[in-house]
C-alpha cells in the first residue's frame, strides 16, 4: 500500500469515526448513568436518519443543520421514554431490560418498514459528490462537514457535563448513585435527562449520517452492533472512550479495507473487540471496577 493511499483511507476512517463516536456516545451516556443498555440504539439512529430525510424532503433542510432540531426532538423522546417505559425496569433483572429494549427495537424497525418501505433512501445535497484535493489526497466535502458537526456536538456535550449544574449532577449520579440521592438530587429526573441526552446524541449522529450514507430500516441492527463494539473497545460508560473507540474503529476498518480486503473490515473491528476484552476488559478508556 502506497503512502498516499494509506493517508487518504486513514483520514476518511478518522472522519467517519468521529460520527460513529458521537453515535456510540449516546449509548455510553445512557449506560453510564441509568445502567440500562439500550439495545434499540441503532434503531433510534435510523429513525433519526428518516427524520432528517423527511425534513429534507419537506423543507430542504440540510441533514447536518437538521441535526439540531432532530437532537432536540430525540431528547424529548428519550426523556418521555425513560419516564414512562424504561423507569419501571431500571431495578429489574438485566434480562427483563434486554427483552424490553429488544422489543422496542423490533417495533421501531417494523414501523419504519411499514412507513418507508425496505428500499434504500438518500438525500442529494448540492455538495454530496464534491471533493477537495489536498496534494495527492482526495477528501469528500460531505465527510468533512459531517465530522465537524459531530465534533461540535461532542464538544457541546462535554461542556454540558463539565460546566453546567445539571451535567455535574448527572456525573455525580453516575459516580455514586446512593450519594447523589442522599444529597437530595432527583435521581429519577436525572435518569430521564440522561436518557434524553443519550438519544439526543443518537439523533444528531443519525441526522449527520443521512448526509453520508443511504438509509434503510434494516441498517438498524448493524448500527446497534457498531455502537456496542465502539463502547466496549473504548470503555462502557466512558465518554472519552466512546469517542476514542469511534476513531479507532473507523480508522482500523478503513486501513484494513485498503491493506487487506474490504470484506475483512468487520473482522478487524471484532478482532479489536476480542483483544480489548481479553487484555483490558474495562475498555481502553474505562475504569476497572474496584
Amino acid at each position, binding site marked *: 500500500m*502506497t503512502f*498516499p*493511499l494509506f493517508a*487518504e*483511507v486513514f483520514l*476518511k*476512517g478518522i472522519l*467517519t469515526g468521529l460520527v460513529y463516536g458521537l453515535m456510540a456516545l449516546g449509548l455510553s451516556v445512557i449506560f453510564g448513568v441509568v445502567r440500562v443498555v439500550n439495545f434499540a440504539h441503532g434503531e433510534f439512529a435510523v429513525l433519526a436518519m428518516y427524520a432528517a430525510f423527511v425534513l429534507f424532503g419537506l423543507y430542504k433542510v440540510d441533514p447536518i443543520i437538521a441535526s439540531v432540531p432532530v437532537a432536540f426532538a430525540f431528547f424529548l423522546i428519550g426523556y418521555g421514554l425513560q419516564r414512562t417505559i424504561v423507569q419501571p425496569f431500571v431495578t429489574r433483572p438485566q434480562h427483563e431490560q434486554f427483552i424490553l429494549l429488544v422489543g422496542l427495537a423490533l417495533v421501531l424497525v417494523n414501523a419504519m418498514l411499514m412507513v418507508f418501505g*425496505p*428500499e*434504500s433512501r*438518500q438525500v442529494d445535497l448540492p455538495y*454530496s*459528490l*464534491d*471533493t477537495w484535493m489536498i496534494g495527492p489526497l*482526495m477528501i*469528500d466535502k460531505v*465527510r468533512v462537514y459531517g465530522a465537524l458537526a459531530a465534533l461540535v456536538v461532542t464538544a457541546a456535550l462535554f461542556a454540558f457535563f463539565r460546566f453546567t449544574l445539571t451535567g455535574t449532577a448527572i456525573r455525580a449520579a453516575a459516580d455514586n448513585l446512593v450519594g447523589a440521592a442522599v444529597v437530595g438530587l432527583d435521581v429519577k429526573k436525572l435518569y430521564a435527562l440522561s436518557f434524553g441526552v443519550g438519544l439526543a446524541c443518537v439523533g444528531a449522529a443519525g441526522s449527520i*449520517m443521512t448526509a*453520508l*450514507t*443511504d438509509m*434503510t430500516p434494516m*441498517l438498524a441492527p*448493524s448500527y446497534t452492533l457498531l455502537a456496542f463494539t465502539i463502547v466496549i473497545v473504548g470503555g462502557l460508560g466512558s465518554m472519552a472512550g466512546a469517542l476514542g473507540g469511534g476513531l479507532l474503529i473507523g480508522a482500523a476498518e*478503513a486501513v484494513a*479495507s*485498503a491493506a487487506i*480486503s*474490504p*470484506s475483512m*473490515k*468487520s473482522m478487524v473491528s471484532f478482532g479489536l473487540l476480542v483483544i480489548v476484552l481479553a487484555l483490558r476488559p474495562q475498555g481502553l478508556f474505562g475504569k476497572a471496577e474496584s
Partner: protein
Amino acid sequence: MTHTTIDRRRLMTGAAALSAGAIAAPSIVRAQAKKLKIAVMLPRSGFFAQAGQSCHRGALASPKVLADLGYNVELVHIDTETNADVARTQAEKAINEGARCIVGAFESGQTLAIAQVCEQRQVPLSINVAAAPNITEQGYKYLVRNFPTGGQLVTNGVKLIDAVTKAKGLDVKTAVFLHANDTFGTAQRGAMDKIFPTLNMPFKLVESISYDPKAQDLSVEVTKLRSINPDLLMIVTRAGDAIKLTRDMVRQKFEPKAIFSPGSPGLYDEEFYQAVGPYADFFFYNLPWANPKSQMTQALEASFKAANPNNRFAVDSFNAGFTFEALLVAADAFKRAGAEDGPTLMKAIRETSIKDHVMTGGPIAFNEKGDNPNIGAVSVQNINRTPTVVFPKDVAVTDPVLPMPSWQGRK
C-alpha cells in the same frame, strides 16, 4: 316408512348408467385437464422482495400472451417470503390444492427446497431464475431450468466484454473485478477465478476486490480502485451497493474506460435509476435479455403494460421474461401432452423445443440434466436510464457508447 326394492329392470338401468359413466369418464378427465393449474412461487417479500415482485409482474402479464398463443393455464401466485422452509411448505400446500406444475423461485436456496418436494410428489418444476449449478446436478427428474448457471453467466459475460470493446476499437489492457461478498457475488468470484484464465482475454485481470454490500459506503474500495487505475472495471453488485459504488466513483472522479457487469443484477433496477439519475447511464451488463426484435417479446411488453401500468417493462424484462418463459415451457408441454399427470407432463417438458420465444438465444430445449444450453447473452447498456440492448447487432436497437463518457456534465 317406505321400502325400496331392487328389481331386475332397475338393476339393468343402474348398470347401464354406470357403464355410460365409465365410458364417459376419460372425457370428463380430459375436460378437467384442459387448463393447467400452475403455482408461481416467488419471494415477493423479504430480502429478495424487489426481484420477486419483478418476476411477479411478469407472471401477471403472462396469461394473456399464453392465451393468445392458444395455451390454457390457471396461475396461483404464492409468496415464498425469501425463506426456503416457507417455500417447501407452500409447495406441498400448492400441490395438495391441485397445482400440477410449479414455476419459480428466483433464488437457488428456495428453488432447491421446492425441487425436493416436486421430486417426491412427481410434479414438474419449471425454474425461472436460479443460477446455482448444483440444482441440475443432483439427478432430479422433475425439474428443468431455462436459465444459465453462474459459470455460464461469467463465461458469456466476459466473452461479450471482449467482443464489444473490440467492435468499438477500445484498447483495454487491465481490468479489476469488484464484487459483493454475498452468496451470489462469491459464487461469481469463484467462477471468474476458474474461468477467466481459460478464456485468453486480451486484457489482464490485475486484482479482484470483494466488499460487504451492507457497508456504509464504498469510499475505501474506490480509493483502492483509483490507485490501481484499471482500463476496465468488472462488477457484481445488487442495487443498494451499486448506488453507493456509483456515488463514490463520481465523488472520487474514478473514470475507467468502461464498466461492465459480467452477469449480475443491480444496474437495471428502478431503485438504481431513481437514486443516481444520469450517473446510471453507460454501465454495461452482459446477460440474457428480452429480445427486443421478437414478436413474442413485443406481445409480452404490451400485456405487461396493461397488467402493470406503473412499471417499465424495459427494467423488468430480465425477470419478467424468464418467468414468462418458465410458464411457456409448462403450458407448451401441457398442450402437447394433453394430460396433467406428473410423469406425462414431465416427459413432454423434457422434449420441449420452442423456437420463437422472448429471451435472447436459440430454441428453448433441455439437455439430459434439465438445463437449456441455448441461452444466449447480449450486452445491455443503460441509455437515458433505460436498459438498452446494444450488442450483438442482430438484436441490438442502438450502438454501444464506448468509452464511457465522463461523470462531469451529465444531465
